[in-house]
């Protein structure tokens, strides 16, 4: 039985939240500016709780089980993070309060900037970007501003490997850049010859995801960076896969110029059903003046018995403001809390176990599945979801059948350069028993694919709904269950 919508559950006159009557003399309302109808639903508080509780039960979540969505780092979200972000001394702070009254918020942000700089090897950090995609946008804007500041105006192209996330080209296009795709070689690395011939005086930068979306560390990363720098271009690092590198290698040390972090991936802030994320950006010393406004800085030095005064600063060649107020502060509190529980040495364990888990899982299923590039993987790996002796079965069928076994499917059909890609990222927070159970399910499905392919083609069987008609959704376009009726 489908859950009705809040509009269908509505009963005229029912009250959900009651407010006090005004304690001030009544003022008149302005003529012609007051609405007649307000077509919102009317429910009781229990109606609301039951509705959303029932909806919640239709969701798969990290709390419910393994969520091996490649490139998304669906690790456990520690509950203390939630408690920290909800502290009244954080949640109740207005962004425009005088700086003297918000020294706690600013100190936390300042320390998080320093912490992320230390983890990544960058010199300057902005905490402003709202998500990874906005971090990319900031990075590309900085690349543009850097070249323009040097009067180097013919750099109109951004080089992007064919394995990159779709946000890379989309972010570059937003800044007016032309995209030059760079192919991947037979080992899953950037094709060095192609990169060399693509690099010239019109190249503004390379967007490099490392480990790349195949889950492989670029073996020739130092050479890649050297080639790009030699052409006068900058290297942008997509930090989506940073969960493989904490305490393992610092992107800034490798020579990468700019990188965004995804606090919602690497640093355990929850994915929230699709946001809010947080996408801070780190840059090398020669780019710090281009960071978006504001950055948090010490505006009055402290002394032995006086804390310094923290405040806002606009960098001298700032690309400008990218959102209102001060970044996704609530997410910053969560990430800061998380990092403090690992410390300088513990962070390395995160990546060690993320990579161990991925390699262990891969070892369990490598006889049953074709591996796109057969190397030691980092925190994730990419399989081909198809077999010659099961001709009708595609990756989507495997993904859907996994739901019957109680698992969230991996990312499928990405990266685009692998046929029927299944991109699997277990993260470090999964235990061996869960990995074994998932491997067993994948092995069972591989067998079913050959013997009972219809089981896969018709999957999932145990979910609240089956495969939905996406063509109908796009054609009929029902995006709203309240039809605007301006006469109401």
């Amino acid at each position, binding site marked *: 039985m489908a859950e009705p919508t809040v509009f269908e559950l509505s009963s005229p006159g029912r009250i*959900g*939240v009651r*407010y006090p009557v*005004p304690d001030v003399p009544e*003022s008149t309302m302005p003529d012609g500016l007051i609405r007649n109808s307000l077509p*919102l*639903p009317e*429910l009781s*508080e229990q109606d*609301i709780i039951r509705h959303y509780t029932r*909806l919640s039960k239709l*969701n798969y979540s990290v709390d419910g089980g393994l*969520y091996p969505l490649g490139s998304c780092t669906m690790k456990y979200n520690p509950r203390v993070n939630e*408690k*920290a972000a*909800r*502290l*009244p001394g*954080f*949640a109740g*702070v207005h*962004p*425009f309060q005088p700086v003297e*009254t*918000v020294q706690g918020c600013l100190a936390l942000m300042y320390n998080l900037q320093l912490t992320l700089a230390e*983890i990544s090897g960058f010199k300057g950090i902005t905490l402003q970007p*709202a*998500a990874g*995609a906005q971090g990319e946008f900031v990075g590309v804007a900085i690349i543009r501003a850097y070249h323009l500041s040097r009067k180097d105006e013919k750099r109109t192209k951004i080089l992007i490997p064919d394995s990159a996330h*779709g*946000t890379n*080209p*989309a972010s570059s296009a*937003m800044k*007016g850049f032309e995209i030059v795709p760079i192919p991947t070689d037979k080992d899953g690395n950037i094709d060095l010859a192609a990169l060399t011939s693509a690099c010239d005086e019109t190249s503004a930068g390379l967007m490099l995801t490392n480990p790349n979306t195949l889950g492989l560390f670029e073996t020739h990363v130092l050479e890649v960076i050297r080639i790009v720098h030699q052409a006068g271009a900058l290297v942008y690092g997509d930090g989506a896969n940073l969960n493989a590198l904490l305490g393992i*290698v610092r992107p800034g040390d*490798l020579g990468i110029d700019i990188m965004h972090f995804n606090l919602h991936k690497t640093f355990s802030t929850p*994915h929230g059903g*699709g946001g*809010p994320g947080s996408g801070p950006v780190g840059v090398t010393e020669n780019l710090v003046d281009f960071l978006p406004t504001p950055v948090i800085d010490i505006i009055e030095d402290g002394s032995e018995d006086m804390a310094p005064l923290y405040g806002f600063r606009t960098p001298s060649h700032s690309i400008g*403001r990218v959102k*209102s*107020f001060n970044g996704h502060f609530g997410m910053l509190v969560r990430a800061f809390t998380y990092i403090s529980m690992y*410390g300088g040495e513990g962070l*390395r364990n995160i990546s*060690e176990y993320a*990579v*161990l888990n991925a390699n262990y899982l891969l070892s369990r299923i490598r006889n049953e599945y074709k591996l796109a590039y057969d190397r030691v993987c980092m925190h994730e790996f990419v399989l081909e979801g198809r077999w010659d002796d099961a001709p009708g079965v595609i990756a989507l069928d495997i*993904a859907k059948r996994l739901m019957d076994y109680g698992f*969230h499917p991996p990312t499928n059909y990405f990266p685009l350069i692998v046929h029927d890609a299944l991109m699997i990222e277990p993260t470090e927070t999964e235990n*061996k028993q869960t990995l074994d159970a998932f491997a067993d399910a994948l092995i069972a499905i591989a067998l079913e694919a050959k013997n009972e392919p219809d089981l896969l083609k018709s999957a999932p069987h145990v*979910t*609240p*709904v089956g495969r939905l*008609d996406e063509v109908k959704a*796009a054609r*009929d376009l029902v*995006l*709203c269950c309240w039809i*605007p009726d301006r006469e109401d």
Partner: protein
Amino acid sequence: MFIPHTESETGEMLKALGLKSIDELFEDIPDKYRFPKLDLPPALSEMEAFSMVQAISQSNESTQDLICFLGAGAYNHYIPAVVDAVISRGEFFTAYTPYQPEISQGTLQAVFEYQSLIAALTGMDVSNASHYDGATACAEAGVLAFHHFFGKRPRIVISPSLHPHYRETMRTYLQGYADVDIVGDESGVNPLLHPDQLVSKVDESTSLVLVQYPDFFGRIFDLSSLAESVHEKGALLGVAVNPLSLGLLKPPGEFGADIVVGEGQSLGIPLSFGGPYLGIFATRKELVRKLAGRLVGESVDQQGRKGYVLTLTAREQHIRREKSTSNICTNQGLMALASAVYLSSLGKNGMRAVANLCYQKAHYAASQIARVPGFAVLDDVPFFHEFIVHCPDSVEEINLHLLDHGILGGYDLGCDYPTLKNHMLIAVTEMVDKEDIDLLTEILGEAHHG
């Protein structure tokens, strides 16, 4: 803690891989840079970490301790307990973008209902699944308008009474779009102009006119004649709203707005020092294929059961790459959920009640402040819950004095508008009572004399 491996399990896993140590997995990393020592404090237990973070939070003063008359785009409202109860469910907050609809119907239906609630509130046909915040929603409105006219109408007219952060963000986003020229808020322009005065800037090369309602100064104008003039020139009218005010005010859809954007923080989202908030984005149905961001639509499965899916994904970056309408990859999922729970719980009655409380209290506050010698309230235009006060001294000094009495004073408009030096923007919500307002008035009187 969060890494569950026991020593013996790690041993078994390494053995399965034929390895002696985890370090062997990292041989692709250049030697010289492998395993850097990170100079960070040692690990804390949960108990220590929480107490450290709590101590940091306690060095702030917050709206819990202070009487808040500060707004300017972020407002101190009561959040019913039901909102946090719902968004604290792990089934919602530990899920991701609903790529697999069969096991994401909870999130998908919640977003579909969010879209419906926003459409109903704004009087528009469709809403997307949300943007990051009010500023980025304004920027995306500019991007939409640019693409709608295929780049052939590069001019965008914005009102000087659009939030300063929204205007700055639009400029950052639109640098790089060929020939885009953002006009209307130049330094010589009277920040308090009537929106109809923007018409003189609108020409055949204009794609979008963007105004705020209530505007940054809290003022409300009938936008119907502006809409008519903008449409005569073939351009789109965008309106940035405070959605809470629409519990009372005529929605922009009724004035003929083509795009409605806004900061959704007032709908059940904590102030949290500026984020995460919620970017509202709604349009007329003719623009739906130009919308950036996620959209959820209704469909059926093979057995005819109703269900929801992400739709029109062909616009998006993971398919269209550089040809997509935006690079946005997520939405503000959990914040959209919070606002949907807020809107559904308050409903018709509660939204009217809270908007009315804000309106009544703000008008009482304005009438009282107007009586304080040396202070003047600019109330020649109707306002919602925020208004301009001309002060006898610098706003900064007055605010310091108010702070001494536990009052968070208004926003200093001189920071953004040189001609509004010594002008304070006061916001009044349901969270203050008559005594608080009387105290404010009393202290303002002292501030002037003292």
